């Protein structure tokens, strides 16, 4: 088999290159076993710490925070004898407390992770073992290694990334559900490695070479070398990803290639996001100011001490030493830093974290964000930018799925230049809309039963709960089948029951009636048939039947060999041959009316032919689905003729449903074949040659099939109209058809414009017939592209582009995507709140404008400015011109506002370095901006430009993968957990289910979070400055020697315990304005936008107030006790007590709400202080030297003077603030 040389070579290669080699773990080769061992095992540990490493590691991590370093520095400073201010032990209390609190938090989080890890590692799967009877034995996940063979049954979860080697499916296909990975619940097809010899397990001697582990979920490149040295390319669709679920396949066997932390799922698993909020940046500035203040105070004391010392000689109270006054002053500087350390609000950072967590708790628990249809609440993924929600100035919104439902419903179409308005369909949609408005709470109940049903019907250990909790459910419609609540999104009656246009039906019926003879009609008929054929097959829709959830209809049962043998005897030749001719004419574009033989047994009834009924391919009436002759037992049951389409995007589903309404039904799909039912022709098996999937740069997708009737290779392409219209060039040398094509293009374009104006999403459908040789050439290069490891994506893209040329335009579709509820209200509220709303969409300009009108972004009084240009110069001129216009308009004051509409190309120019200034200047003056035809990259560029250049707070909201970059760039990214998977949600800071939630999220929670946090931060600064200044004033009366008049425990605890809880509660619960008022008056939001609650002036005013209060709080006791026999602690006692009262009552004045919780905490804090000092003054006999508090507070609190001083101080200190509040 393998010679030694090549083996060592592999071993060498796999070590050195960015590749990995995988062989069966059963190999006896030592060296290869070594290589396998070098890969990480499947045990996952997401915990940061182990039992032993917790303390050192956690400490190390915490020491990375600057604040903690500062704390430790102070604590260490206190151990230096010449500068120490307190007992060294006391000064380490704060740092210990902060570290401990953080450590406990980390420990708790880590423990939760540990529990979940343990659970996952302990899951069981079947692994092939040679030791135990050469059979599959149960193993825990953590014991799975690279190279192991794993056998999985239906609905089991994949334990590691593995290559699919065997599937019980005869076509080597298996389906996985990636909901656990990205939240998409549609099934994805995976395929056994091509041309794999039957060599499973025991005699598996192939070698797999693949990339090193990476986090790209959609890419896997490598090849497998068989013992015969033949190589086969490995793609993403050979790979089963960890944590996905096997569906619809009885058994699969795979070989593990990546395990544990090297799996793509784990590589993609990033923790929560950390962003720094605007308020925090502002806060950091003020912390710096505090530092400056601290240094000034310490310098004052240091200089004062130096001067004071110089004037003194030979005193009995000075300890004789030889240090010069200057040096003493220097030492004192550091002492003072220790004494006044509280000025830097260290605990502020911890407090902010706690407060934000609580704010998030409240946001998450808001009932208004609960979506009962999806059973989902808001998800807060970023934990520390809650207050940014209150300062948003620009909102960038995606359109589809964000403003709209993203429930695509086929509305109308144009085929071969003829418009079919589908009036009935429009009426139907209106009815649904009304229905929905009536309310649809009945769905919940039905879904509840649906869930239990679906659970019962499952034999395997599938956890339906996880599935449903992870992903959203559709809203608004009753589930069509009791088993699949999730799929109501794609197959609700509204989307499904399309009423066909009678005219079109009539035309289509010609196919099965003698009327087809009419020449023009026939020509048109080819177009129509092709059009619906394309709708039905040009997609990646997976078909399944409802009663057997997640089980794909076994289209494979209708394999081609069988099909052909069966079909010929049962169906008459004539209609097919006719149609074939029809198609060949169409393809050759030289249609001539050929008098074809009259079909002998043509199905005249659209409902089907009695003759065919006996055959497998019988056509059931109407919307009936696949007949289940020899399928699973469930197929035989009654009343389940329906098919369920699961599409990656709702558009696709809508189109397939539309095709089905015209009885062009997609009945099944396997890897190589599609089963399509055509009217009058019965089920046809279409050989699927290639799928060129959709990508955002091509903006189209294609399928290459062998046409069942003509046996030609046909390319069906579906894509954005702009792209397809360009590609759809008329075939050369065919005059007649050219003219026709030209006409069709012209007409179609006209219709497309109409559709767009109506706000419909448009898609163009085109086809191309390939000559065999042409196909062969293309195929070769395509195969090369597919197997190459490097640059595969580029090559594939190029290959696809090569194919998609010279298309024949068939027609276009218009799809309705309704606005979500309350979108206009939300946008209006946002605009009233001073938030500028931009819509960035990939849609056409007309569609975008239409939607903008519908959601009141554009008002009728607004002046619309459109910017479409082809060159940079033109763009520049246009921008200037528009700006002039805006200025004129502003001067005139006639119009209420301007709305700028930019298309993608213009945007490209506008975003360039030299034009962006003009562009911003223009857009800044506009009330709203709509960017259409923009790519994901442009979206993020726009957001970035606005954010950086205008220095504003931006929020981006979107639901799809194309919004991810924009969401990440914006200060606040919001994902809508809708129907396009979870990518947007995964990259967002907050995930909501409806656009309307944005209103409360910003106007209420954003406002609250911001004001609360801002007020709390100011309060913290106030509190610290106020208290620390008391100590500073005392320096003037103790020779600037760094003495304090307080017991050092009380001093340390004052900030840490006695006055820490009330501000936290203040930051969590205070409500300056009620929620109702905030919703009613969006204008109130502006205060947050302008950072009103926390302006520099507010900061300095607060500082001044703190200074005043500290002066009062110090000097009233000073004069009251001046010249008396009061000792230091007795002097400090009333000062402390009144400082506490002032600080607490200050908060009462500042709070806008007081609940029993506030009262509890405030009273509790005060009681805590007084009881602590009292007990301390009784119990502490020799502790805490030199400021031993024995008897001090007890004595003080028994004297009326104490209360007299406290009352006077408190009242006088709070007088200005109280008057000001008034």
């Amino acid at each position, binding site marked *: 088999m393998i010679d030694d040389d090549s083996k060592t070579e592999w071993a060498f290669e796999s070590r050195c290159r960015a590749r990995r080699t995988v062989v069966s773990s059963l190999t006896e080769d030592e060296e290869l076993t070594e290589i396998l061992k070098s890969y990480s095992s499947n045990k996952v540990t997401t915990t940061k710490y182990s039992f032993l490493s917790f303390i050192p590691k956690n400490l190390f991590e915490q020491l990375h925070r600057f604040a903690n370093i500062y704390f430790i520095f102070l604590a260490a400073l206190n151990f230096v004898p010449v500068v120490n*201010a307190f007992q060294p032990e006391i000064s380490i209390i704060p740092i210990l407390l902060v570290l401990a609190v953080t450590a406990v938090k980390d420990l708790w989080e880590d423990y*939760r*992770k540990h529990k979940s890890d343990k659970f996952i590692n302990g899951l069981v799967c079947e692994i092939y073992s040679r030791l135990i009877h050469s059979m599959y034995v149960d193993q825990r996940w953590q014991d799975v290694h690279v190279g192991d063979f794993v056998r999985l049954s239906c609905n089991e979860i*994949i334990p590691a990334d593995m290559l699919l080697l065997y599937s019980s499916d005869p076509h080597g296909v298996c389906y996985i559900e990636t909901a656990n990975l990205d939240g998409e619940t549609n099934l994805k097809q995976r395929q056994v490695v091509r041309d794999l010899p039957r060599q499973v397990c025991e005699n598996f001697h192939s070698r797999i070479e693949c990339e090193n582990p990476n986090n790209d979920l959609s890419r896997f490149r490598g090849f497998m070398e068989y013992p015969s040295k033949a190589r086969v390319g490995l793609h993403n669709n050979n790979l089963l990803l960890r*944590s996905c679920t096997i569906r619809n396949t009885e058994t699969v066997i795979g070989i593990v290639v990546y395990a544990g932390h090297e799996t793509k799922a784990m590589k993609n698993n990033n*923790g*929560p996001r950390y962003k720094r909020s605007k308020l925090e940046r502002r806060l950091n500035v003020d912390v710096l100011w505090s530092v400056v203040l601290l240094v000034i105070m310490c310098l004052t004391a240091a200089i004062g001490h130096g001067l004071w010392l110089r004037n003194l*000689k*030979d005193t009995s*109270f*000075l*300890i004789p030493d030889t240090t010069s006054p200057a040096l003493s002053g220097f030492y004192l500087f550091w002492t003072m830093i220790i004494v006044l350390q509280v000025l830097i609000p260290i605990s502020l950072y911890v407090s902010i974290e706690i407060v934000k967590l609580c704010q998030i708790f*409240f946001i998450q*628990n*808001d*009932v208004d964000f609960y979506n009962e249809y999806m*059973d989902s*609440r808001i998800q807060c993924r970023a934990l520390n930018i809650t207050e940014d929600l209150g300062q948003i100035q620009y909102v960038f919104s995606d359109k589809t799925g964000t403003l709209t439902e993203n429930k695509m419903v086929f509305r109308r179409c144009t085929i071969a230049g003829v418009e079919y308005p589908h009036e009935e369909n429009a009426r139907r949609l209106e009815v649904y809309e009304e229905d929905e408005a009536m309310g649809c709470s009945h769905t919940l109940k039905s879904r509840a039963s649906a*869930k*239990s049903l679906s*659970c019962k019907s*499952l034999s395997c250990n599938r*956890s339906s*709960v996880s*599935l449903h*909790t*992870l992903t959203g459910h559709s809203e608004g419609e009753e589930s069509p089948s009791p088993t699949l609540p999730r799929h109501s999104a794609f197959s609700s009656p509204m989307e499904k029951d399309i009423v066909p246009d009678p005219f079109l039906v009539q035309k289509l019926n010609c196919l099965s009636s003698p009327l087809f003879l009419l020449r023009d009609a026939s020509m048109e008929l080819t177009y129509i048939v092709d059009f619906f054929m394309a709708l039905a097959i040009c997609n990646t829709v997976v078909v399944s039947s409802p009663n057997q959830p997640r089980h794909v209809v076994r289209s494979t049962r209708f394999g081609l060999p069988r099909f052909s043998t069966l079909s010929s005897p049962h169906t008459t030749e004539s209609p097919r041959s006719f149609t074939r001719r029809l198609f060949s004419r169409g393809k050759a574009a030289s249609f001539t009316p050929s008098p074809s033989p009259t079909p002998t047994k043509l199905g005249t009834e659209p409902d089907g032919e009695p003759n065919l009924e006996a055959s497998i391919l019988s056509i059931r009436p109407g919307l009936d689905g696949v007949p289940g002759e020899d399928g699973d037992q469930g197929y035989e049951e009654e009343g389940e003729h329906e098919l369920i389409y699961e599409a990656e995007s709702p558009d696709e589903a809508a189109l397939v449903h539309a095709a089905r309404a015209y009885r062009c039904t997609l009945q099944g799909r396997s890897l190589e074949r599609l089963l399509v039912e055509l009217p009058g022709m019965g089920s046809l098996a279409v050989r699927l040659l290639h799928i060129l999937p959709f990508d955002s740069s091509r903006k189209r997708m294609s399928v290459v099939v062998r046409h069942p009737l003509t046996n030609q290779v046909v390319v069906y392409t579906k894509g954005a109209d702009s792209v397809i219209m360009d590609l759809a060039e008329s075939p050369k040398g065919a005059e007649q058809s050219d003219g026709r094509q030209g006409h069709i293009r012209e007409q179609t374009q006209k219709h497309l414009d109409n559709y767009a104006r109506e706000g419909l999403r448009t898609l163009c459908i085109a086809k191309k017939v390939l000559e065999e040789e042409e196909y062969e050439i293309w195929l070769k290069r395509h195969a090369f592209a597919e197997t190459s490891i490097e640059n595969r994506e580029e090559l594939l893209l190029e290959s696809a582009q090569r194919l998609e040329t010279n298309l024949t335009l068939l027609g276009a579709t218009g799809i309705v995507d309704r606005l979500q509820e309350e979108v206009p209200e939300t946008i209006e509220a946002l605009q009233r709140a001073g938030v500028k709303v931009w819509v960035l969409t990939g849609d056409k300009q007309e569609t975008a404008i239409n939607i903008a009108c519908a959601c009141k972004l554009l008002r009728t009084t607004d002046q619309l400015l459109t910017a479409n240009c082809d060159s940079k110069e033109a763009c520049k001129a246009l921008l200037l011109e528009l700006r002039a216009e805006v200025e004129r308009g502003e001067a005139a004051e006639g119009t209420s506002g301007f709305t700028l509409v930019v298309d993608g190309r213009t945007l490209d120019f506008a975003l360039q370095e030299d034009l962006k200034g003009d562009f911003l200047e223009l857009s800044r003056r506009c009330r709203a901006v709509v960017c259409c035809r923009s790519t994901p990259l442009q979206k993020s560029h726009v957001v970035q430009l606005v954010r950086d250049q205008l220095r504003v707070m931006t929020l981006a909201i979107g639901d799809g993968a194309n919004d991810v970059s924009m969401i990440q760039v914006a200060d606040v990214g919001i994902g809508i957990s809708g129907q396009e998977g979870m990518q947007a949600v995964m990259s967002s800071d907050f995930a909501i289910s409806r656009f309307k939630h944005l209103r409360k999220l910003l106007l209420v929670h954003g406002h609250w979070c911001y004001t609360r946090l801002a007020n709390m931060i100011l309060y913290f600064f106030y509190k610290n400055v106020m208290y620390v200044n008391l100590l500073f004033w005392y320096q003037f*009366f103790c*020779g600037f*020697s760094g003495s304090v*008049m307080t017991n050092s425990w009380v001093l340390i605890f004052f900030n840490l315990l006695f006055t820490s809880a009330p501000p936290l509660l203040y930051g969590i*619960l205070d409500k300056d304005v009620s*929620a109702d008022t905030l919703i009613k008056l969006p204008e109130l939001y502006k205060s947050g936008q302008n950072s009103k609650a926390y302006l520099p002036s507010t900061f300095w005013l607060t500082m001044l107030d703190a200074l005043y209060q500290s002066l009062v709080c110090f000097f009233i006791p000073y*004069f*009251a006790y*001046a*010249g*008396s*026999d009061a*000792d*230091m602690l007795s002097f400090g006692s009333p000062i402390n007590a009144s400082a506490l009262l002032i600080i607490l009552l200050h908060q009462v*004045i500042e*709070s806008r*709400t*007081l609940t*029993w919780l506030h009262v509890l905490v405030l009273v509790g804090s005060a009681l805590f202080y007084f009881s602590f000092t009292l007990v301390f003054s009784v119990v502490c006999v*020799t502790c805490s*030297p*030199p400021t*031993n508090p*024995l008897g001090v507070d007890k004595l003080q609190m028994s*004297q009326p003077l104490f209360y*007299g*001083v406290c009352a*006077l101080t408190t*009242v006088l200190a709070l*007088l200005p603030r109280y*008057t000001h*509040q*008034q």
Partner: protein
Amino acid sequence: MMASSYNAKEEDRHQPGATGHVGSGTMTNKMPDNTAFKQQRLPAWQPILTAGTVLPAFFVIGLLFIPIGVGLFVTSNNIKEFEIDYTGVDMSSPCYSCSQSYSWNNTKSCTCSVPFSLDQPFESNVFMYYGLSNFYQNHRRYVKSRDDSQLNGDKTSLQSPSKECEPYRSSDKPIAPCGAIANSLFNDTLELYYIDPNGSRTAIPLVKKGIAWWTDKHVKFRNPSGNNNLTVVFQGTSKPVNWRKPVFELDPSDSDNNGFINEDFIVWMRTAALPTFRKLYRIIQKKPNNMTPTLPRGEYILEVTYNYPVRSFDGRKRMILSAISWMGGKNPFLGIAYITVGSVCFCLGLVLLSIHYRYGKRNSADISS
């Protein structure tokens, strides 16, 4: 299920582990509890600071504070206090010579007599203080320079005092009591004589016990136990550098006032808060069953044994005689402050009231709009 329940997602989910185990059948409803707390609808008292609630507060404070202030002021004024500076800065001062020729090491004490007269008699108990000025007993290093365990009678601390006491920790033997505070103990002796109109001097009895805090005397300060003979107890220690006599000879006549529990010493050890302070020295008790005042009007002589040097740092020494009321010694400040703050509040209330009446309508219109 749980294959992907890693951190980020897990946090988003409600009860991540449980849902999986509870498993099939149960429907997890993620609807948040509609409780007042979670929906932030707790019944709250909103202290809406409007004229209606604020103005009364001003008047109430004003009306409360002014009488209190008046009361305090009157009380303070009724307290008689007499103060005499005996530092001897002036040439004319009787203690001038003592103050000039002084150092800690003087063995011979210098005495001087300061005559003074009381214009008004002291009726009740009189507290006799000595006062020091410009004496920073609150200096950080001075304050620290003591050993509370030693003073509490701890034997090990007696033999090896705390490092804080440096450089007054030990001379050749450990110093008891150690530290700078003890070392700088005020050691002037003050005696008071009443000069009868007929010229004879009557010594006024000065009580030297009861001047320290009860907790200090009985809890905080303790002589090392074991032996009643303090001389034995303090054997192996030396006296503080500036002291003339060791700690066990502070009051040889009274064992309850000797050693660490000597009250003069205890009082000194309670460091004063401010550089100008007074400390209780003696109490002159009202004579029982006698209608004559404690200190009648007339001439007095203060006999000072001048030991304590203060001239080097511009210090001052005073002797103070003062009566005491319920709110302490004589201090008019608090009364005046109360009256002032009370009047300010009252005036503010009036001003605000007038503003309220003049502009009130407009303000309320602003609020409601």
